[in-house]
């Protein structure tokens, strides 16, 4: 039987309340402190290194994001790749189960709203908080870079950096959706947080090192055969790698922030004939290169949220 009334009645009210809770909560203060620290330290050391080697690259602001300045062993991309999921999980792990635990859910759902509105409002509010955190980080790095280098970024750099920011938000969105899913599945917030962090660790550290080679070997045979690298293995590995949001994000960052990146897959010598190795691609070409990755991240976020949504719709509300 079809229900009457919009499923999104009240979603705006939920969003406003949840966003206010998120932005005014102690959790957001901690996140912003973390963002401030990372931005300041990384931007300071990176700009120091860039000032000493100015003229080596026309893309100074992109170098700001991609270089690993001494004594820090990580680049901005590496740090954001670690921090964005942690922030997303911190924002989402208790989104739904806290309502069960506080016994507020039945009272809220007894108001004239559907569950759809509650879940969507909660997710969008957290995505907004995540976006604010990441945009703050991005703006602070850009600002410190601007002040320390004394130059504004070029339009090309700005476009690439905005693309990178969007991809980072989508990447964080995937982990937010994962945390959201676990918050629907598990009543204990600690279990939801641990499960989310566990999955993140699997994709961050074990996927490419253990799981992907194992599965690729089982599907396509060994990595090397009599005539050299096994192409089937390489292609299977790449497909498996791209299941991981970390790979999609890393590939997007690489292509957008290192304009000389011309491909993200295996390249044959015949394909390199006539290519100007090391010459930067126009921004539009780089975007075409990473379009599937960005789309994949956004689709991943939507699909995982949709799974959480379906599970939540089927849950019994007694609390």
């Amino acid at each position, binding site marked *: 039987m079809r229900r009457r009334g919009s499923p999104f009645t*009240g979603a705006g009210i939920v969003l406003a309340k949840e966003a206010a809770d998120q932005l005014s909560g102690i959790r957001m203060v901690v996140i912003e402190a973390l963002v401030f620290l990372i931005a300041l330290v990384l931007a300071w050391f990176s700009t120091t290194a860039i000032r000493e080697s100015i003229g080596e690259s026309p893309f100074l602001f992109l170098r700001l994001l991609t270089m690993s300045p001494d004594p820090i062993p990580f680049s901005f991309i590496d740090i954001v790749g670690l921090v964005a999921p942690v922030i997303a999980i911190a924002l989402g792990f208790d989104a739904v189960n806290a309502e069960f635990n506080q016994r*507020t859910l039945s009272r809220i759902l007894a108001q004239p709203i559907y569950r759809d509105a509650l879940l969507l409002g909660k997710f969008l509010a957290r995505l907004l908080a995540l976006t604010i955190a990441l945009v703050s980080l991005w703006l602070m790095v850009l600002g410190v870079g601007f002040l320390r280098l004394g130059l504004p970024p070029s339009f090309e750099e700005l476009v690439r950096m905005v693309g990178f920011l969007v991809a980072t938000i989508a990447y964080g969105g995937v982990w937010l959706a994962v945390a959201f899913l676990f918050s629907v599945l598990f009543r204990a917030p600690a279990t939801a947080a641990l499960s989310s962090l566990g999955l993140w660790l699997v994709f961050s550290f074990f996927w490419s090192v253990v799981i992907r080679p194992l599965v690729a070997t089982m599907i396509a045979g060994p990595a090397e055969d009599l005539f050299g690298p096994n192409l089937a293995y390489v292609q299977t590995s790449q497909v498996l790698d791209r299941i991981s949001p970390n790979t999609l994000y890393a590939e997007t960052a690489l292509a957008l922030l290192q304009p000389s990146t011309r491909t993200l897959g295996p390249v044959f010598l015949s394909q390199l004939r006539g290519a100007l190795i090391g010459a930067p691609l126009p921004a539009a070409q780089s975007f075409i290169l990473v379009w599937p990755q960005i789309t994949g991240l956004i689709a991943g976020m939507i699909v995982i949220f949709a799974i959480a949504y379906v599970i939540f719709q089927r849950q019994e509300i007694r609390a």
Partner: protein
Amino acid sequence: MAEEVVIRAQELTKRYGGTVAVDHINLEVHAGEIVGILGPNGSGKTTTILMLLGLTEPTGGRAEVAGFDPLRDPLEVKRRVGYLPDTVGFYDGLSARDNLAYTGRLAGLPRREIDERIAAALARVGMPDVGRERVGTFSRGMRQRLGLAEVLMKQPSIAILDEPTATLDPHSTQEFLAMIRGLKADGITVLLSSHHLDQVQSVCDRVALFNRGRVALSGSVTELAHRVLGGGYVIDVEVRGGTPVRNQLAAVPGVVRVQVLGPELYRADCERDLRTEIARRLAPSFDLLGIRFAEPSLNEVYTRYFDEVRRAA
């Protein structure tokens, strides 16, 4: 004219896999009534309430609440129904006012009226000065009152209260029961689920006794007593006049037995409602002070019913 039926369940059924939680129940609640739903844990009371609110889908049958089908028009039902769950939860970090303002906005109340309604509702539940206080500092009793304030703020036509006094101390319970009576005085129909039989008896016009997902019995306490305890109607007569009263009372056709409960208090076991006949017989000769049904105890009815169910099983 028959009273308007505001809650109607027809063959309402809910199954969880192979388990039948609510089994083809039929229930009617009329406008302005307070109806109690009773039964042991797991007898289907809360599941029925959730189906009436549109919070869970029935497997079979249909329901109508305030003229709307909760399955098809849950938003319309929820606009007209105030719900107080058994252990009501609030956002501890928000003030009482902010908690109510949030649900007020969700309920679609006009923004300019929300503050006014919150103040009136808080005053009505005896907490006029707590609006700015964080709910995290509230006792259970205060939370239950706040829950009732939320129901009142919504100005519903129906209030569904699920075990509202379960966690309250005796004094708070009495105050809460008075507030429930106040809902009736406001013309609000109340569906009250409770394990406290004396409380149900003290506020409800009718009760429905749930057992294993079915409505085993429903009616006024007197009617239930008649069915479960057997025998006739029990009428207490307060009259001044000495020994002849007893003989006169026993002579009324339909009176089976007369007990003397005190110097001026007699109890007559009757085959039917004989209050008028008894009054006619005694009033001309004696100083008749009062005549009323001796309320049988709901506790007795409940205990006897479930003893018989156990014995039959």
